[in-house]
């Protein structure tokens, strides 16, 4: 076999192995959600089985899951909108203006991501309790915002920096004020970066479990909290857990697949001129 062909085959095998490793848990979740209890607990595991939708029927019997999905949607949606609304102008300022403390501010944004979330869980709980915000959408939105804002600012600053300053100056000569320049030039041109940071914010807020578990009780429990809530007592209803997991993951997966081209474009933005 010639070395180039061998290289390509090995490359392909490597990719397939990586793909299998990444996708197998996902496959296991979806297939388990379609197995009945006997097939689920069979050892060794069964690979061929008659699919059943009974677990899905079970999770829709009451409004727990639908309410949790709605809560997740409210929290993730509001976090994303606020993160973009606050982060994009901040990124524009960091990308284009010189002001005192710019570097410190920049570092502060990044340093937020250096702290393990669990470290802050107790202080945040006590603060939320003190402010009377436990079990509200607002407390989750605020805490998620503190995680998502750095991502938005980070990606968007990089994106805005790649926009030639000449455009801003041309716009200034064209009578555009600072707001016009941001709104009509930077925002449309920075759309790939904004889209990527919005997607990241949404996915993070949608999937987050730790703070949702700590800060909610019953009213605003999000979808991941509900999925884990079945793991209580002596029984482990795997089918129900897997069906709920699938229902949670499916919308963001479809969404991510649809926008994946944007994501790659946004992430590599600025890498080459």
């Amino acid at each position, binding site marked *: 076999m010639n070395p180039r062909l061998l290289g390509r085959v090995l490359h392909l095998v490597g990719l397939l192995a990586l793909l299998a490793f990444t996708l197998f848990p996902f496959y296991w979740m979806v297939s388990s959600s379609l197995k009945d209890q006997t097939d689920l607990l069979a050892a060794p595991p069964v690979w061929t089985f008659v699919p059943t939708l009974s677990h899905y029927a079970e999770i829709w019997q009451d409004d727990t899951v639908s309410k949790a999905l709605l809560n997740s949607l409210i929290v993730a949606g509001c976090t994303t909108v606020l993160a973009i609304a606050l982060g994009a102008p901040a990124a524009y300022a960091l990308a284009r203006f010189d002001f005192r403390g710019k570097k410190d501010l920049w570092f502060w944004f990044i340093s937020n991501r250096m702290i393990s979330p669990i470290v802050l869980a107790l202080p945040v709980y006590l603060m939320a309790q003190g402010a009377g915000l436990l079990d509200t959408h607002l407390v989750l939105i605020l805490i998620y915002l503190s995680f998502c804002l750095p991502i938005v600012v980070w990606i968007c600053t990089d994106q805005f920096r790649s926009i030639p300053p000449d455009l801003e100056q*041309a716009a*200034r*000569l064209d009578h*555009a004020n600072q707001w016009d320049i941001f709104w009509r030039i930077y925002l449309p041109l920075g759309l790939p970066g904004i889209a990527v940071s919005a997607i990241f914010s949404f996915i993070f807020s949608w999937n987050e479990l730790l703070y949702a578990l700590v800060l909610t009780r019953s009213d605003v429990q999000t979808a991941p909290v509900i999925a884990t809530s079945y793991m209580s007592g002596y029984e482990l209803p795997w089918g129900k857990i897997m069906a709920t997991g699938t229902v949670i993951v499916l919308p963001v997966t479809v969404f991510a697949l649809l926008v994946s081209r944007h994501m790659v474009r946004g992430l590599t933005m600025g890498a080459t001129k």
Partner: protein
Amino acid sequence: MTNRNDDNSMAFLKIDNAVKRYGDATVIHGVSLEARAGEFVVFVGPSGCGKSTLLRMVAGLEEVSAGRIHIDGADVTDVPPADRNVAMVFQSYALYPHMSVRDNMAFGLKMIKTSKVEIDRRVAEAAAILKLEPLLERKPRALSGGQRQRVAIGRAIVRHPKLFLFDEPLSNLDAELRAEMRVEIATLHQRLGATMVYVTHDQVEAMTLADRIVVLRAGRIEQVGTPAELYDSPVNTFVAGFIGSPRMNFLTARVDSVEDRRVRLAHPALEGALLPLRNGANPKAGDEVTLGLRPEHLTLDAAGAPVTLAVTSEYVENLGGSSQLYARTADGTRVIAQAAGRHTTTRGDTLRLGASAEQAYLFDAQGQAL
């Protein structure tokens, strides 16, 4: 805000002792300049001479550290760029990539809430002048370099500005397109009769476009004059070397004697040569001077020439209609001569180049014209 000042009514653009500092570094050292209405002024100079900075100070994109700038009689030094009524064409074109050609041209008018009918009329007018009609709905990425440059100019035209500013607008184009656009810009200037300030490092652009050229070096004006004045009477070796292509030849020589406002030079390669002094200077015998000879003023046939230069041939570039000879004098100075027709010489041939005394330039040891 804008104050009309009658003292400045003669000059359309007046730069009065303008200084630009970045921290401790001064990049423009008190430049003063006036341009008349309808004049085409070109700032020319090597990279880093401050020509673009000066233009951006006129546009209002750079703050003026000291001095004043007046446009059409009004002091605009502290007026924001948009309120100066100037339009600028950038080297990078600076077209808005997400907008169509039409929207790019209309953007400035939309910003000042011009009526749609008027916007359409002005865009159509500019598009007709620049032959952009078929391209109006395209995005900049679907245009060639020349077309983008035309859109950038169109964007300037639609605003009917008092002053057009061009910042090296042709430097991203290939040679052929550059020549084509140069003619278009010259035609546009004639047609609009507007005052234009144009920055370039290309002396050919400066010579062909300008009513007046401003030669800048290290943030100072070296000379201001018409292209012919700069070519015929450069004030120093810098201007003499910068204007004209190929570059002027310089030979370092000594004054042998001075007779009746004419100097005889001592240089091993030079013969004859009683050269007239143009300015009031009084060089003495023994002073070091620089002799400047333009390549196009040197002839390959030295017979009967008042000045002759002995050189050793190195090689000849045949340009079709003309030839460029590269040679060296005995002291190792490179000399270029340009002659009509095709010439062949062998490397190492000794040649005698001829020149007229009137077309020889003399500079003192500091490089100032004598």
